[in-house]
């Protein structure tokens, strides 16, 4: 839930100006708009990495804009899973280590993963299997996986320890149409199983049919018209 939010980088003009944007719990929301309309900036703000100049960002009833940096980082670690467009994985960690990474920074997700499957590693293995990464692929170096496989590993990482919110930022833009549909189906069914709210961001409005709600950020963001378009 976002209210009266304004944000700009440095002394530049505002990139974002949103009067109200609300996402209900457990909904699958599709957030779309062309490049440069402020999607990534908005996500960084929901993640608590950037702070709005004005207004508030509230997640699970907690107001991020009133928190200190460390507390925002904890909110993100405990409650939000991220999937990016590409280069999601840490190259020097194994596939399973990559998936377990959030549990290194969040005791809560560590505990939830243990409660669900007995141990973090088993939890990671289960998620990877459900997302179609079999044992043979798991032993490979992350850099040897195809982009589609890397994205599924990233999805497993976003889901481990059952965060309340999963944010996917153009996760399918490097995939072809078949893989794209397959990935979205897998992601959404896994999120259903975990019970996570999904915010899926894309410039491709044709994907909207997979989701409960669709939000056009260009309409929601009053600053989008005047900001530079990349």
């Amino acid at each position, binding site marked *: 839930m976002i209210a009266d939010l304004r944000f700009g980088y440095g002394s530049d003009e505002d990139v974002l100006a949103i009067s109200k944007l609300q996402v209900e719990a457990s909904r699958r929301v599709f957030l779309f708009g062309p490049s440069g309309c402020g999607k*990534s900036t908005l996500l960084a703000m929901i*993640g608590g990495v950037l702070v709005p100049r004005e207004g508030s960002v509230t997640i699970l009833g907690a107001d991020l804009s009133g928190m200190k940096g460390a507390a925002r*980082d904890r909110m993100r670690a405990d409650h939000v899973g991220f999937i990016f467009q590409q280069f999601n994985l840490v*190259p020097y960690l194994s596939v399973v280590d990559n998936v377990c990474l959030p549990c290194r920074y969040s005791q809560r997700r560590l505990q939830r993963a243990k409660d669900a499957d007995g141990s973090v590693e088993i939890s990671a293995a289960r998620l990877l299997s459900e997302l179609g990464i079999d044992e043979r692929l798991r032993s490979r170096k992350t850099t040897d996986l195809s982009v589609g496989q890397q994205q599924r590993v990233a999805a497993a990482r976003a889901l481990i320890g059952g965060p309340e919110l999963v944010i996917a930022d153009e996760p399918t833009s490097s995939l072809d149409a078949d893989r794209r549909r397959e990935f979205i189906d897998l992601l959404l069914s896994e999120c259903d199983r975990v019970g996570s709210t999904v915010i899926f961001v894309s410039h491709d409005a044709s994907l909207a049919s997979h989701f409960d709600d669709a939000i056009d950020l260009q309409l929601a963001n009053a600053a989008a018209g005047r900001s530079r378009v990349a």
Partner: protein
Amino acid sequence: MLHSVRNTLALVFKSLVNRRGTAVLTLASIAVSAALLSVVDRVRTDTQTSFANTISGTDLIVGARSGDLNLLLYSVFRIGNPTNNITWESYTDIDARPEVDWTIPISLGDAHRGYRVLGTDLRYFEHYQYADERALEFAAGTPFSGPTDAVIGAEVADQLDYRVGQQIVVSHGLTETSFVTHDDNPFTVTGILARTGTPVDRTVHISLNGMDLIHSDGDIDRFSVPIGDYESEAITAFLVGLKSKIGIFTLQRYINEFEPEPLSAVIPGVALQQLWGLIGVAEYALLGVSAMVVLAGVLGLLATLLVSLNERRREMSVLRSVGARPGHVFALLLSEAAMLAFLGALLGLLMVQLGILAIRQYALSEFGIQLSVGLRAFDLYVLAGILSIAVLVSTIPAWRAYRNSLADGLTVRL
């Protein structure tokens, strides 16, 4: 807290293994610089100890008028050559003074296969002391008793594989290939001294009788008087032990103002101090250069980290997205530098230990320097110093990564 430290270290280790090419090179450069610093200081202090251990219990060294250092070097270290001789009359005059407890006459000038030959009498084995007032001991055999008897140092025995009873030939002059070799009067090894770690190990000791025999026409009967009764014409120097230390300066003045001939008397400790004054400058220069090499090694580490920063921005934002705080990013880079520096320095110190074990024997036999094995306080300073400098300079890349991770948010625009 402990949990997060362990997490960071696990990440650091995997990250370093991933970039093992540059990591190993950085590690090596730090290891080499640490080894250099450690070895320079070790050689410095070990040289000093070895030198200081060479002579002990002697109150004055007396020789013909010359510089203090020169006298010390030729009489005790067998380095350089005496300027002149002392007549037997002057020697007995001073030897007879009431404050004198004992003296050891020394006559130098010949060599046996590269080792100095020293003419003396039995008081040498009785009174000469090294290290902490340790007396000479025989590893085998007995002191010389006749003009053609010889007592050799441990190093001479080892290197030339001599045993008691061996016949040896003493040449006139100092080089191995002298023109005149005194084949007509071979010497017999009667004793081998225990190892001392001093120039004594590299000396062939003969009686004053024998010394004069070498320089005579070879008529052995003239020199076959008992060793204690023999009176040479001249000696090179002599060591003096006093009954009471209080008399040192009085006797020193007496000798320095000795009328019949110009003599010098030096206190060994004072002359050694002069020697340090001379060598010390070079040693500190070396130490300074080594410290600079350490700095260069750490700067290499800094350069490697800075170069890696850009290619690791994505990695950092991934870590941020899964919940890492900017502080984690800072700690990650700092720990990488610390781990490289620590392992590098440790490796360097290990190299020093192995190196010393390898060259120990050589340093002892060639230079008479006893190199010590084992960690010393200075090594710990090297370790701690390199670690702290590395951590200090790596705050620069760590800070930049921290700033980057704040500015980049979760998506890197490259």
